[in-house]
């Protein structure tokens, strides 16, 4: 058991730490190339994020969405599928939550309205996940192609729905506010967070992490899902219905990403706005990769990427904020590369971990 634990640390933590170290060095060089002192920039980044309550709140808000999209991608990868569709699943979830919220009577109690809207968000995301899932299960269509294409279709459909149907407030690309099902901001309980977008969806994200971890590593469904991802032929021989697992994984991933839409729609702005997803679905791929497809790893990775993204705003005075995007790229590359390299350095077991596979896609 101890060997298994140390192996897990070796597999899960060391490559990530190595990657962060590489990114730190690369960041230093970038900062120096702008004629700034690295120490000063990093300090500014930390003080702008974890240095004050507002910064913390913003990081938590950004991390919340990333947890959902990261989990969505991680669940797919565990089943052997590369879900590129978290972006449109997230958007569809947000749209459905807002649409239902607008349909509900305004006086409805939030205790009923919020769960209904959350359910709508999950259903919206699940539907978008279901399409590539069923295409893969029934016809063998590759999920990477299907999800990428579906991103365009769904995002265009949502744009049409908001701009051409009179759903939007005139002169804007967002719906009217959804009053009855607003999730309270953190500032409502802790005034120190005043002004930040962090809201109660954080608890939902933590629940999603716990439930996903249980589902993947403790449940029979997760056992079958991981077996399918690691060795589909062996899973098939064991009587596991592999296409069904693929479909379920896509539906589940879609539902989780869709639920993430509630962070913006129910927790922050209280309306659906075209383009609110803003790349959080694609960044979910990086979050899953750096988090090594482990729900708790996803949580940490989401916090890390949220910190970078918020930190980019803080250091903008000294270096361009695009620097953090470069750093994000370096971290992703370094994680992808360091997984086998770290193992070689440690002369660990010779076999490549199956979780490195997505890198080769």
């Amino acid at each position, binding site marked *: 058991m101890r*060997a298994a634990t140390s192996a897990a640390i070796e597999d899960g933590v060391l490559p990530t730490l190595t990657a962060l170290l590489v990114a730190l060095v690369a960041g230093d060089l970038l900062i120096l190339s702008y004629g700034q002192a690295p120490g000063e920039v990093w300090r500014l980044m930390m003080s702008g994020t974890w240095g004050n309550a507002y910064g913390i709140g913003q990081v938590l808000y950004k991390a919340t969405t990333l947890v959902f999209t990261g989990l969505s991608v991680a669940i797919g990868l565990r089943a052997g599928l590369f879900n590129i569709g978290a972006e449109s699943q997230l958007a569809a979830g947000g749209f459905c939550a807002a649409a239902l919220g607008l349909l509900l009577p305004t006086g409805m109690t939030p205790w009923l309205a919020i769960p209904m809207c959350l359910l709508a968000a999950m259903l919206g995301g699940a539907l978008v996940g279901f399409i590539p899932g069923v295409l893969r299960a029934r016809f063998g269509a590759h999920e990477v192609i299907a999800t990428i294409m579906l991103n365009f279709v769904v995002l265009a459909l949502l744009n049409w729905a908001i701009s051409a149907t009179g759903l939007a407030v005139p002169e804007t690309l967002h719906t009217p506010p959804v009053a009855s099902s607003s999730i309270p901001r953190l500032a409502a309980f802790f005034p120190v967070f005043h002004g930040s977008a962090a809201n109660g969806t954080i608890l939902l994200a933590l629940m999603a992490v716990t439930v996903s971890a249980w589902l993947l590593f403790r449940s*029979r469904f997760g056992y*079958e899902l991981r077996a399918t991802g690691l060795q589909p032929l062996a899973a098939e021989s064991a009587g596991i219905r592999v296409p069904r697992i693929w479909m379920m994984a896509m539906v589940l991933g879609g539902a989780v990403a869709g639920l993430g839409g509630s962070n913006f729609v129910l927790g922050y702005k209280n309306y659906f706005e075209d383009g609110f997803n803003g790349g959080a679905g694609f960044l979910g791929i990086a979050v899953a990769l750096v988090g090594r497809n482990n729900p708790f790893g996803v949580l940490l990775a989401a916090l890390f990427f949220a910190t970078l993204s918020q930190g980019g705003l803080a250091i903008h005075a000294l270096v361009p904020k695009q620097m953090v995007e470069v750093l994000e790229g370096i971290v992703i590359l370094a994680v992808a590369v360091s997984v086998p390299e770290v193992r070689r350095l440690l002369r660990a077991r010779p*076999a490549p971990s199956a979780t490195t596979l997505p890198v080769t896609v």
Partner: protein
Amino acid sequence: MRERADQGVSRAAGRGAGSAAVAPAVRMSGVCKFFGPVQANSEASLEVQAGEIHAVVGENGAGKSTLLRVLAGLYAPDGGTVEVFGRDVTGWSTSDAIAAGVGMVHQHFMLVPTLTVAENVVLGREPMSGLTYDRATAESRLETLSRESGLACVPSRLVSELSVGEAQRVEILKTLYRGATLLILDEPAAVLSPPEVDELWRVLRTVRDAGATIVLVTHKLDELMEVTDRITVMRHGKTVMRLRTSETTPAAIATAMVGRAVRLDANGMPVGADAAALGLAASTDEDAGAADDHGAELDGASVSEAWTAILDAGAPPDEMIVSSARNRITRSAPAAIISAPTPTYADVPRLRITALTVPGPRSPRAVGALSLSIAPGEILGLAGVEGNGQTELIEAIAGLRATTSGTITVDGTDVTRYSIGKRLALGITHIPEDRQTRGLVLDYSIADNLILGRQTHFSRSGRIDRARTLAFAEDRIKAFDIRPADPNALARSLSGGNQQKIVVAREMPADFRVLLAAQPTRGVDVGAIEFIHDQLRAARCAGKAILLVSAELHEILALSDRVAVMYRGRIVTILPRAAASEDVLGPFMTGAAS
């Protein structure tokens, strides 16, 4: 044959021991190699004379492959020295090794299927005319090489069209093209059918006679007697002895490998421990006693110490003679093994297949209107050259492959339309021929692999019951002697034989009815073969029906009650065991008789 081997030895001895100035082709001593906490090699040694065929044998997990990979530069040793042709090359890289004329032929071929034979052979050092690949030169060079080495090939054929045996020959040619004078082959015979194995040995002799030195890992004890000059035996990561092939027997080698006596039948196949209990082998008791004594004599430290002492003293390895007791192991007479109890043919057979047609990847009738039935307590051996529909038949019965017509019934229940899971639940189990992709999830622990397919039984309200899974795993690990005995160890970290034991342990629960055993002992060491055969025999006595497919005719003859021969998707004959022999079956297998 034996004469050839003797010549080889005397020639090699003449070169090696005779003139002390000539360094051996390979001298590895004190080699240690760790993988994490696992020590694959501890103080292992290997000495190979130039111009000989040298086999490294040992149980699965004995460290043979690791030692050869150290030699080929794939692994750097954690201790010890490696010398090749007198030069210290400890810790070299694969490119160093290739440059020095050391080439490894891997078990899994590294060929590009969409390229031709010639293109594969020259890949990486293609002859060019200007900026383009010079096909004519490549093919003529390969033809020259082919003529000189005696390895026939058609340079313009696509590799994807080749049989496994032909592909392996291309691998060897590729190694020779790169100038290898020392060839390392890791279990070259494991993937081949019997005629291809014979061809391989011929090829290796040809290559040796052309001046190359060959080191190989094999499990086929009987055949290595014919082809090798010398043998190094490894056990638990150590070299326990080295012998001249001409001065030993398969039984003595098996004893040294396992550290105890293993009974072999006339074909070099181990005989099960329960054979005596079943009254299958009348004379075994006495023999086993004698063999045990022999095992004790050879066992453990005494031998390796003696060997080390000789090495330290610098005496030539030829002095190491371990032939003293070899005649004391009496082989069980084949006649005694085969007199199995006649199965009682019940009115309802356990497994009945009627006019089954199965489409395959290459033919719409890989199995064509095939009928057979297996009684409770019967092992039906399915012989045949690989690729005649055996795989498709097994997969169709297991539910992995769709059928176009015909029925499959188990104990009278028509299962033709059953899902795989439903067939499993009914008691149809399957040892798949490719354990690494079909049989195991390599990145799952031993425990998780042991419940694969029965995970529903081990879960309560949707949750896997860890405690019950681990308890079950501990029990199976003990019963099947799976090593390491750690239920949390990843299946990937186990040797091939221990991986196969997981599959066998899982697919033979108490309540199964029909077992489809495809190549159950392929690539598995002697000790594990013996164990798996015991399990199959015990299952037969418990009234199970077993369909056994094996590329080893020896294995089929050693286990089966009836032998069916499959040729081009049909069963061309079914014989009772007493009427079957290699001579009788051979013409049916090749389609010459029907």
